[in-house]
């Protein structure tokens, strides 16, 4: 076993520690009213309209947070899906549209049920009915079983649209193609390169890679999410500069 902390971990720790005050500062500025410019992402624009469309059609909206499980490296992606659920559930509660969430991890069940419940309007808060609890559904622990369960949900429930944000592999094609055949408006997003081509083929709009993590900033304008987006972009710019510099140096001096 190594007895010295590896250099890359030390660098990572330094980066995280440095980003903390920057994050706090930017969050404060955003809370004080500092505007953050956001480029247009078509998927976000469509997602902002989905609840309204569901209301018009008198149908529900489906949301999936991916085939990942809590505690994995893809938990951040799952959290991005939960952020989308947070925003959509709030809008659903304001409009009376029922959200329907399918999950592959039973540990996500209480989380999603609580999110749906707590985002309800005060008048309906605390009404934990069987119907409310069944708005979050466990499909199956493995990816294909989950996808098949989600297919069935898309086919047999009265849905207007489907938002699928989180870790997805090729099994997404089962979900996406079914949604397309059912003529649902679809927004999909993942960081998994294996699932992205299938999203491009079947979804109306696709969120690629880090765009997933901008859901809270785009849809709800939460200050902490806006601030973290600013920090992410700054670090990304720094990394790009380092890469370009490294390539130039390597090309010039070998």
């Amino acid at each position, binding site marked *: 076993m*190594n007895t010295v*902390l590896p250099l890359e*971990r*030390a660098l990572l720790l330094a980066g995280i520690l440095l*980003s*903390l005050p920057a*994050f706090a500062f930017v969050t404060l500025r955003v809370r004080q009213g500092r505007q953050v410019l956001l480029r247009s992402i078509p998927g976000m624009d469509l997602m902002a309209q989905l609840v309204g469309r569901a209301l018009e059609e008198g149908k529900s909206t489906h949301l999936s947070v991916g085939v990942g*499980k*809590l*505690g994995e*490296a893809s938990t*951040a*992606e799952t*959290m*991005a899906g939960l952020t989308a659920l*947070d925003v959509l559930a709030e809008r659903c509660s304001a409009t009376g549209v029922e959200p329907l969430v399918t999950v592959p*991890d*039973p*540990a996500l*069940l*209480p989380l999603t049920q609580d999110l749906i419940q707590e985002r309800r309007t005060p008048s309906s808060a605390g009404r934990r009915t069987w119907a409310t*609890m*069944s708005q*979050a*559904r*466990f499909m199956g*622990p*493995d990816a*294909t*079983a989950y*996808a*098949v369960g989600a297919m*069935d949900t898309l086919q*047999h429930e009265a849905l207007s649209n489907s938002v699928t944000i989180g870790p997805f592999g*090729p099994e997404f*094609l*089962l979900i996406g*193609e079914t949604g*397309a055949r059912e003529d649902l408006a679809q927004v999909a997003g993942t*960081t998994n*390169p294996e699932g992205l081509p*299938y999203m*491009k*083929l*079947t979804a109306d709009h696709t969120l*690629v*890679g*880090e765009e*997933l*993590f901008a859901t809270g900033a785009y849809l709800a304008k*939460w*200050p*902490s999410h806006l*601030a*973290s987006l600013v*920090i*992410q972009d700054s*670090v*990304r710019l720094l*990394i790009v500069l380092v890469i370009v510099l490294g390539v130039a140096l390597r090309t010039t001096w070998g």
Partner: protein
Amino acid sequence: MRRRLPAAVATAVGTIVLLSFFTLNPVIRGITAFLTHTAMIVAAFAFLLGVLNVLLVHVRKIGQRQSGWGYSLALVVVMLVVLLLGRPGTQGPADSGVEWILRNVQIPLQATFFSLLAFFVVTASYRALRTRPRETSLMLLVAAIVLLGQTPLGPKIWDQFPALKDWILAVPTTAGVRGILLGTALGTVATGIRLLTLTDRERYFK
């Protein structure tokens, strides 16, 4: 207190587990090992919730005679049978009955559904070609080169297909994947920081 206690627990656990990645301190590593074991136990118990949820959804469906309630009935029956076969006192998942169901029902079904992807790809490609002809054409052209390079058919058509496939996978694809991984890593760190610093506490710790 109802808000602060969960928030404090979440922050403390997250910080300790994060620290264990950066330190060699045996105490912190021991605490981390305990916490990770605890998380595994919690995750295992969460499956009970999953079973209850499946029962709730499908029993309601059967009771209300919703469309496809027969399938729900089959699901509930099979689930109970498997639970019964793998009950405590048997070999659990290695029980011959469970293994038989897995080998003859679960695996063929799962493989069959996954093989549907081949068929779905064709129809999805056709639809995408009609709705987004330019980008889909480009994507499918690259896919065709990679597919031909991966199979013995490609070299029979043009002997440079494998080399072209390797170049596509090694240069543009890997570059794109690395870019995505980099952005994902940044997003993951940002999400972790938000959770640990409790900037989202007003939303998640009510």
